[in-house]
């Protein structure tokens, strides 16, 4: 799966979590850009992404994602790791 595919999957998780199928999300999107993405929906989004890719983030990663692209890069690295 390419980083772009991962961004698209994460965008789907975010839209489903926030209950808004029309949200415009790309790799540069940050929590501030997206309506409804607060600290608690962040938890739901993170857990949703973990379930989607069957991976587990570390707490420090959860706190430091600057945008969707960074989250996708972390997922990509986790999927590539043996």
């Amino acid at each position, binding site marked *: 799966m390419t980083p772009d595919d991962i961004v698209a999957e994460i965008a789907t998780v975010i839209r489903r979590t926030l209950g808004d199928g029309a949200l415009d999300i790309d790799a540069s999107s940050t929590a501030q850009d997206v309506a409804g993405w607060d600290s*608690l929906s962040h*938890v*739901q989004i993170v*857990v949703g992404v973990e379930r989607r890719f069957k991976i587990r983030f570390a707490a420090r990663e959860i706190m430091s994602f600057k945008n969707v692209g960074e989250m996708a890069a972390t997922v990509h690295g986790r999927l590539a790791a043996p």
Partner: protein
Amino acid sequence: MITSTSNVAAPPIRLAVLADSASQLFVQELRSEAEKRSVRLDIYEAPFSQADALILDPTSELYAFKPDYTLVWQAAEHLLERFQTSRLDQRASFGSQHMEEIEELFGAFEANGGSKLLYLNYVELDDAVFGSFASKVPESWLHQVRQLNHKLMELAASRPGLFLIDLVTLGGEYGRSYVEDRRIAMTANLLFSLDFLPIIAGRVLDVIDAASGRGRKCLILDLDNTLWGGVVGDDGVEHIELGSLGLGHVYTEIQAWAKALKERGIILAVASKNDPAIASEPFERHPDMRLRLDDIAVFVANWEDKSENIRHIQSILEIGFDAMVFLDDNPAERALVRMRLPDVCVPELPADPVEWMPALRRMNLFETATFTAQDVDRTQQYRQESHRRVARTGFADDGEFLRSLGMVGAIEGFTPFNIPRVAQLTQRSNQFNLRTVRYDEAELRRLADSPSHVCLAVNLTDRFGAHGLISVVILEETPAGYFLDTWLMSCRVLRRGVERLVLDAITTIVRGRGGHRLIGEYRPTPKNGLVSDHYPLLGFEARDGQWCCDLKSYVPLEHFIHREPPLP
């Protein structure tokens, strides 16, 4: 799940949530759990960590909200922090001091008009300071938190308006690694995992439902393979699994649970596909039965549709269908009752019976908000009522249900592979067995090779899985016609239309051999009353003490089983 449509019209239940950690997602779960149960819920979510201030101030938004229920969730993690920063010489009294604070708060809450109070007790986190020795050290955290939980329980016992949500037990049931997600706790101050939140929300709604009069009142039990292992009509009362026989402990445990519920005031009823005399035999004679006939308020054993029998039970007990739980090992029976009586709670049971009791415990089916001495003899009152009424007969149209089962029947001759099972069936089937002729494997092999016999073994599958070989027919060619030497079936697939499918196949095969008449016979035994009308129901005519079917006038009867070709 309780789904009473009448709740929609009732005013919404007002619930205030006071928490000292992030509660937004918990509140979301409470809302969705309420929606699932068709309970209208208005929630006031207090600002974070404001419980004390809101409770002590009679003019606060809490009282302005006029809650019916107020939920207080103080996290054990935060209490542990307070403990760790308290003075060493005060630790031995930490629990009782905190309890005093709680009681003061309760006092103020009641004085200010209050509401019913739901209080989450404290998860007994291990602080890993004394190890197991903590129990010997009064100033240890574990000693104190456990004491606090015990005192909370005593307080709840003396205050009718205080209900504990037992996180300690729930945490033990699911385990710490399920209950918490450390990353979420540390980054978002949400102290339960996203998976555990709906479980607590479910328990909170259980208590609210019970306190609002929507608790469940009746447990309806199937018998064979639910209250004991095996089929009493086929295996005989001595051979059913109970006590130390086979997996008997599993069933003993279920019975012990049902008995304890009965002693608490839950009404027990039986709905079994069985001959009534056979079904009651274990209750009367088996030494390992925990349940006896006088524990059962309404005992219905017949061959009717279970949903009709549950209707009958309901008409005697005069309680709502949403107050009933129906326990049955058979997925098809469960599906039927869910379809016909959607308000009845029908727990889905794991395939392995050893997992039933743990699954049932987690479902918390019988939450209650009251317990009085009168509850104990409720069964007795209903038993008397039950004796006045007789089970209704007649049943609704089964077509829709049978079609939904997606049944497929396969009919084959006797083969080296199925002969052992055929022999077992001829030796064990007592109820659906027209002549009760017993065969061993050698005799069956001879019949299979005999040119003047037709031997049929019937397999059935439905959307719940394979039932395996469930019916056997042996025909003997005689000058008068084809004589039905054996026709038997497993009662597990009763009322599925299998006999109609089988008769269709028989007529096709016999016609193919140039025959034109079937001759059946019913030989009564103490156990096969079930099939006394088998032949007339299939359109056979009485002739000289036997039953005849002339193939010329045979009209196929409707059934919903797709037959897999070919025929033997």
